[in-house]
């Protein structure tokens, strides 16, 4: 069944408004993109929408009680809540180095959640 979905591309700050003609999950046409990335984004957003996320996890004996973490690659959008719930359970112990893997291969995506800074002890 043919329909047109509207979306805004987030690949770069320009934020082109896209009109995406789809038949089920097959992309027929993408209008409104200023560059190739628009079509790529539309494709992903229809079939496999993903986002980079950032949050924090608790640290014991740290200079601060939390250390920020993030996903280096975008993870499936529908996984975000579950990932955040998992992160809430984590407690690291200081000192923690930047790039420490907090959750490896989160939910089998092959993507790690890592710390975005060092966190020394108190």
């Amino acid at each position, binding site marked *: 069944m043919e329909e047109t979905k509207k979306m805004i591309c987030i690949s770069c700050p320009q934020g082109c408004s896209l009109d995406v003609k789809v038949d089920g999950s097959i992309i027929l046409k993408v209008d409104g993109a200023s560059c190739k990335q628009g079509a790529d984004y539309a494709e992903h957003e229809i079939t496999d929408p993903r986002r980079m996320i*950032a949050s924090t996890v608790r640290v014991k004996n740290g200079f601060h009680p939390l250390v920020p973490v993030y996903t280096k690659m975008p993870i499936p959008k529908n996984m975000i809540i579950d990932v955040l719930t998992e992160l809430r359970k984590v407690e690291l112990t200081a000192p923690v180095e930047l790039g420490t893997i907090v959750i490896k291969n989160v939910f089998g995506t092959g993507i790690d959640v890592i710390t975005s800074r060092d966190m020394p002890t108190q």
Partner: protein
Amino acid sequence: MLLKNVYDVVVIGSGPGGLAAAVAAKKEGAEDVLIIERDVELGGILLQCIHNGFGVEIFKEDLPGPSYAQRFIKDVFSLGVEILLDTMVLDITPQRKIYASNKRLGFVEIEARSIVLAMGCREKTRAQIRIPGTRPAGVFTAGTAQRWVNVEGYMPGKQVVILGSGDIGMIMARRLTFEGVKVERVLEVMPYLTGLTRNYVQCLLDFDIPLQLRHTVKRILGNDRVEAVEAVQVDEKWNPVPGSEEIIPCDTLLLSVGLIPENELSRKAGVKLDPVTGGPFVDDNFQTSVPGIFAAGNVVHVYDLVDWVTEAAFQAGKCAAKHAIIIRRKESNYVPLIAGDNVRYIVPQMLDKRNLEEHEIRLQMRVAQPIEQPVWVEVHDKENLVARKGERYVRPGEMVTVNLKQKNFTDVEKAENLTISIIPR
């Protein structure tokens, strides 16, 4: 680390502007570079911006704020930049004297051959946009809330309305949602989004947080803690549209209504400010109206991409270093002249060594007491006699002179200072 009295370059603030300026200054050849930071660690505002979007231009990577900061912090340490943390700069004079204080060292006075101002900006407050209503707890600027949520580890509310569709507001909408807070509404007084469209998608659309353009907060309700805000639509003249009022229950109002370059210290230093930007007038070296005082980052004007802050700060730091090096060279060309035995004063009080390569320099002095017998007028570099002249007598009423000749250059060149004394023969 022992604090020096004089630094080549002093950088005020260690956000992206300050970090890049300090690193660039060191790389350009400034010997002593100091960062003074009021917070307990380096990184400035980047430390609480835990979302990505930093470094796409400079590093070709999409990094979170703290990681971006850490790249430069690494260089700061490896290059030997000195740092003063938890230290507040209280005053800067146009002569580049800096007064600061902290718990450990107390009150410090530092001279700088050049300064880079990198104090960033502050957030516009409720009073500045004059939101009427009560003054309960629960009205915060987005940045203050961000600090609590991301760094200190506390949630400032559980049901939030955000005023302002700037990036900080939208980012906080997502951040709060991630931490289990209900973001009821984002209100924007303009007829358009003031932040990036991509943030609208990732922060509001993704979480079904409604955005109302041409809306603002008419008043705040609640005596001790926020209980609700009254939202209202506005027309093209910013007037509330009667009948469009809506009471939105909430316990927190987050303000993301604008950033103002923080130029208190710039004012004290006599730096001319551009009334349109709120920041200093700068040239393409990012030097302000006061020679030797440079400025970089949000303190000059508000940027939207941190990569451009870094680029500007590199330039400011480089030029600040160049300026400091020139001054250092000039200082090292000067030799102070000290009045020794029987000499009341000497003019000039210091000489530029380089001039001695070209021509003689005449030193003039007066004595305090008459010596009615033959004397030597002697110029010493410590024990080393550099020049001498005989006089039959010396009297206070008659000026005494001695000339340094070009042949004295090799002696004078290595002297830290010269002492002129008058000794009876």
